């Protein structure tokens, strides 16, 4: 007996709609997490570069901890672990909201920001120290020098590794289904459970992941070429 391929069943009708709604959820959670993790990662990198001992230690501890523990564990930590720390009233308040999506965003953001912080830090190292010196000498504070002089140059250097972090995030977003966020992978699993057409559902969802990844990659590269590099030849 061979496996009966039936792509029509999974891309049309009710199941097609499931995949689309899963795709929307995946795009939504990925987009929010990418923006937040870039911001948080940059902040963590700047703390590490600040030369203020306690901040440097805190930043180093943050990156090492969140880079080196499994994302799945972190997702459970935020979702189930928070219960034991937060007051009952807060837990109840959260339970009435979309806490699953929020925990997914927090976990993806924190996890990815640890990697992004390291990428940005290495990008900053590739910028000559004299740039910081020159900007500080003009009266810019450390944060101003970072914001206007160092980071804009560092970002250009780290675009390729940043893209791979974004792509990792998109792929990692499939793990949020473990706490019930109905993303693309979740929907593919549901279709499999209902129809046993798992191969088709996962093939279609894989193609969707591939499309998202290629588009993100293309988009960032275009931004890099058109906006960032166009300004300095």
């Amino acid at each position: 007996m061979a496996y009966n391929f039936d792509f029509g069943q999974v891309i049309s009708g009710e199941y097609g709609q499931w995949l689309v709604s899963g795709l929307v959820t995946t795009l939504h959670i990925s987009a929010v997490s990418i923006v937040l993790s870039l911001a948080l990662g940059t902040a963590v990198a700047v703390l590490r570069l600040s030369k203020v001992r306690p901040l440097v230690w805190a930043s180093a501890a943050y990156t090492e901890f969140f880079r080196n523990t499994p994302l799945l564990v972190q997702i459970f930590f935020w979702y189930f672990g928070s219960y034991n720390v937060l007051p009952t009233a807060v837990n109840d308040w959260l339970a009435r909201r979309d806490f699953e999506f929020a925990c997914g965003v927090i976990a993806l953001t924190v996890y990815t920001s640890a990697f992004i912080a390291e990428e940005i830090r290495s990008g900053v190292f590739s910028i000559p120290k004299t740039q910081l010196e020159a900007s500080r000498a003009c009266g810019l504070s450390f944060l101003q020098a970072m914001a206007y002089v160092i980071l804009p140059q560092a970002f250009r250097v780290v675009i390729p590794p940043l893209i791979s972090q974004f792509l990792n995030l998109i792929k990692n977003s499939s793990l949020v289904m473990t706490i019930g966020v109905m993303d693309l992978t979740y929907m593919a699993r549901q279709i499999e459970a209902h129809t046993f057409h798992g191969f088709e559902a996962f093939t279609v969802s894989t193609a969707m992941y591939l499309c998202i990844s290629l588009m993100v990659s293309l988009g960032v590269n275009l931004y890099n070429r058109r906006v960032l590099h166009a300004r300095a030849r």
Partner: protein
Amino acid sequence: MRKAAWISAAVCLAVLCAAPFATAGKLDDVKSRGVLVAGVKDSQPPFGYVDEKTNQIVGFEIDLMEALAKRLGVKLELKPVTSSTRIPMLAQGAVDIVAATMTHKKEREDQIDFSITYFMTGQKLLVKKGGGVASAADLAGKKVASVKGSTSEQNVKKAQPGCTVISFETYPEAFLALKQGKVQAMTTDESILVGIRNSDDNPEAWEIVGDYISPEPYGLGLPENDSDFRDAVNLALMDMWETGEYQKIYEKWFGPGKKDHLPLTWKMELWP
């Protein structure tokens, strides 16, 4: 980039085409081999799970498979399957039959065939005692936990469109969400809910409520379009019921006084 895309497409295609073509006549196959290979659950008490003392897979479905193998005159070999591997393994012939708490649904018919119903249960709700939920009707605006790879999510959505379903990987996680108040109920087959409730330190704090949200008839998974084998399995099941062997196995796992007590309230379909 384009080259990489082509390569990944080619790999996907190769994997899909690799699903082998099994030979016809599973019954002859099994008999000449002298072994029936059954795909079973290994972590779903009391249906199929690893016994802590003996390290063997035991359970209601395992006993049922033993009885079937005895009737076919062959030995039994068990292979653990999961919700996502059971169909490919059956389709590729890695197992001859699947006994893994699988609900017989029309939509599932075009991949595999099913035996007649060998276990009848229905989807219910597990809630905190005194938590204000007595049936699906009370779930409007509330969150319900279910487990992925099951159809319970859609069923409860149909019974109460106003609820939000949160699906987890495993039953313990869904139950933890219920305990932490993240959801107000969890839903799945009553037979499974009984086991979950009993696994808690304080089973009295929880109750199983409501009418059946949906009937869940379990069928054995069989290779598609092999009527000889299907007949043999169906006749064996009916024979078990008629000779009382089925009831004996049922009592052993679900009888009064057992941990997962569930009264036998349905009758197997018996062909005259």
